């Protein structure tokens, strides 16, 4: 991912690597990850389960020590200089974790006191996430949605410039998911940078300005959502319907024309056409009349699945310096899949 003019980055990692030792050998969590998150907007951090998203976030926050590579937040190398920048970062890693026997207010008061935030700030953030009426209840009695909201309140205690949300909608009902989504978008609209990791594509596609896609601990694609989706749509796909008796003829005509055709129920999907007109013309010339012709727009999900289709979750295990599958990790596809993010665009 290029940043013309060396534009401001909220997060940057270079060659970040983390392995975990276990009785079964060495498991690779993150393998040489190069990640760039521009300042401002929502950046989706996508990948299948076990692709290294949470490990990367933990390394950024100093919770996990990288084996190799560097990471910076707002230009400060982390974890070495994390204390200098931690006041600008609010984060929720995986599920919210507070002291279960304490009330929401007490939990936040402790955190606020630890960073010297004024007491009034606690009330303000509790109010901001809509927990005022339940703030004296014990945390362990909270629903998942309330816990998530409390975690967001905790991140807001610092009034941070960068917010990191790791799978923030896990376990939430549709209303909760929407609420969290709106919150993240709202924070970005206030000028903050939001990094949201997720494996739920639809969720990210709706709010993210830019994304990075990782698989097996490596970056496989990065760029603006629109560019990635556009790249995925470069080779046009068209769905068409013809009269049932013509299905076989239409398939034959199109395949003869060098197009890829597959059957989808009572329709045909054609890949590789320059445009819909080419398909329509080819069929019309052979007397096959099209009832319906729809250009298919690639979505983030199809891009994601295309890039990560061959990846298995749970990382991969090395023994004696080789992958468990018997070969080195595959080369990342990011060179082909990257779309530039220009300064100020995100």
């Amino acid at each position: 991912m290029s940043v013309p003019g060396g534009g401001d980055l909220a997060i940057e990692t270079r060659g970040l690597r983390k392995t975990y030792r276990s009785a079964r050998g060495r498991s690779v969590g993150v393998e040489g990850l190069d990640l760039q998150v521009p300042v401002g907007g929502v950046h989706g951090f996508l990948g299948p389960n076990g692709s290294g998203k949470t490990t990367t976030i933990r390394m950024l926050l100093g919770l996990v020590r990288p084996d190799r590579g560097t990471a910076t937040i707002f230009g400060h190398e982390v974890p070495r200089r994390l204390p200098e920048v931690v006041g600008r970062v609010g984060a929720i890693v995986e599920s919210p974790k507070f002291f279960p026997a304490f009330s929401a207010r007490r939990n936040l008061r402790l955190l606020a006191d630890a960073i010297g935030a004024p007491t009034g700030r606690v009330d303000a953030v509790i109010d901001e996430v809509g927990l005022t009426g339940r703030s004296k209840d014990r945390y362990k009695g909270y629903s998942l949605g309330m816990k998530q909201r409390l975690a967001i309140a905790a991140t807001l205690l610092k009034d941070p410039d960068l917010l990191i949300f790791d799978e923030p909608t896990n376990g939430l009902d549709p209303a909760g998911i929407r609420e969290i989504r709106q919150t993240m978008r709202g924070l970005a609209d206030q000028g903050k940078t939001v990094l949201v990791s997720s494996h739920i594509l639809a969720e990210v596609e709706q709010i993210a300005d830019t994304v990075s896609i990782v698989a097996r601990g490596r970056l496989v694609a990065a760029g603006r959502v629109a560019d990635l989706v556009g790249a995925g749509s470069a080779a046009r796909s068209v769905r068409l319907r013809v009269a049932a008796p013509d299905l076989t003829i239409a398939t034959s005509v199109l395949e003869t024309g060098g197009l890829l055709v597959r059957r989808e129920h009572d329709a045909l999907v054609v890949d590789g056409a320059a445009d819909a007109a080419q398909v329509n013309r080819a069929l019309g010339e052979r007397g096959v009349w099209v009832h319906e012709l729809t250009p298919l727009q690639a979505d983030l999900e199809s891009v994601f699945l295309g890039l990560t289709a061959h990846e298995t979750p749970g990382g991969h295990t090395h023994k004696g310096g080789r992958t468990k599958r018997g070969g080195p990790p595959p080369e990342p596809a990011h060179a082909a899949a990257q779309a530039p993010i220009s300064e100020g665009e995100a």
Partner: protein
Amino acid sequence: MSRLLRVELRRLWARQITRWACVGVLALAAISGLAVYLSAPPPSAQEVANAQEMFAADQEAWETDGEQQVASCEADAEAEGRTPEEWGCDQMAPRLEYYLPPTQTFVPDATQQELMFGAEEVDADDDATAAAVEEIRGSVWNGWAGLASLDDVAVLLVLVALVVGVSFVTAEINSGSLGMWLTFEPRRQRVYWAKAAAAALGTVPLVLVGFALLVAASYAVYASFGTLGGLTGAVWLEVAAFTGRLVAAGAALAAVGVALGVLFKHAAAAVGVVGVVAWGSLVFGFGLGELQRWLPTTALTAWLQGGSVFSTERCTPSADGVFECLPVDHVVTTTQGGLTLLAVTAVLTLLAALVFRRRDVS
């Protein structure tokens, strides 16, 4: 006081286990007072009258044949090659205190103890050690009642401090809230030292008030019985000194609890290790010979009670080739005990601080 330490202290005192520990300490003081009340009443007038009656009867018999009994004793002593004093011939005359039921007092009475259990022999290699052994055994903390029974209960207070320290960090590790905490304060060394200091300082009131309640309950009961014993200013000074040492031990063990909690991550494992070490020391300690000196249990006893005596066996072959084993007393002074405790605390704390700094947090 740093901001982080203040926050950790507030968290410590807001925790349920700390509050339960306070309730437990109150209950301990109440039960201890009740136990003293039930076990230490002075002899009743009827018991004293019975004792006096028996004493009078024996005195009368002694006046009749006492000289004959002494003569017989002296003859036996001479036959065994001992002096009459060594054979106890000068102690044969009836004395009223032999007949009166033993009276427990707030300040342990050495005479009463000797009457009940006999004089403890000192088996030391040199005079200095022998003097130290006698001084330790003569301490108010080494009797059989009153203050001497409080030191055993006081050990429970430092164990409570240790458990509070263990729980303070393991709860945070197991709930995952440590990760959230570190996203607010990533300087791990500061975080660790604040936790250790909070546990050490935060348990001081618990131990201090707990022991004060124990002493007060015991004092009140003995005072109501009129059996305070030889309570002098020096005794109160010794109580104050003991309290100071107890509070210091409680703070050290709370810090040890934090260290063990960080190292083992689970409260049961950390407390279990302490239990195994304590149990092993008590059961198998004697087999360690002179190494007993370095056991944490010996060090804690020495630090609290103003010194500790332990015994080893020295076996030598006799003329007929049979090994004869004799006990040898050794002394661990207060200072030695304190330094050992300090060393254990420092090593565990530094190790835990290092692990806390390096370990990945889930």
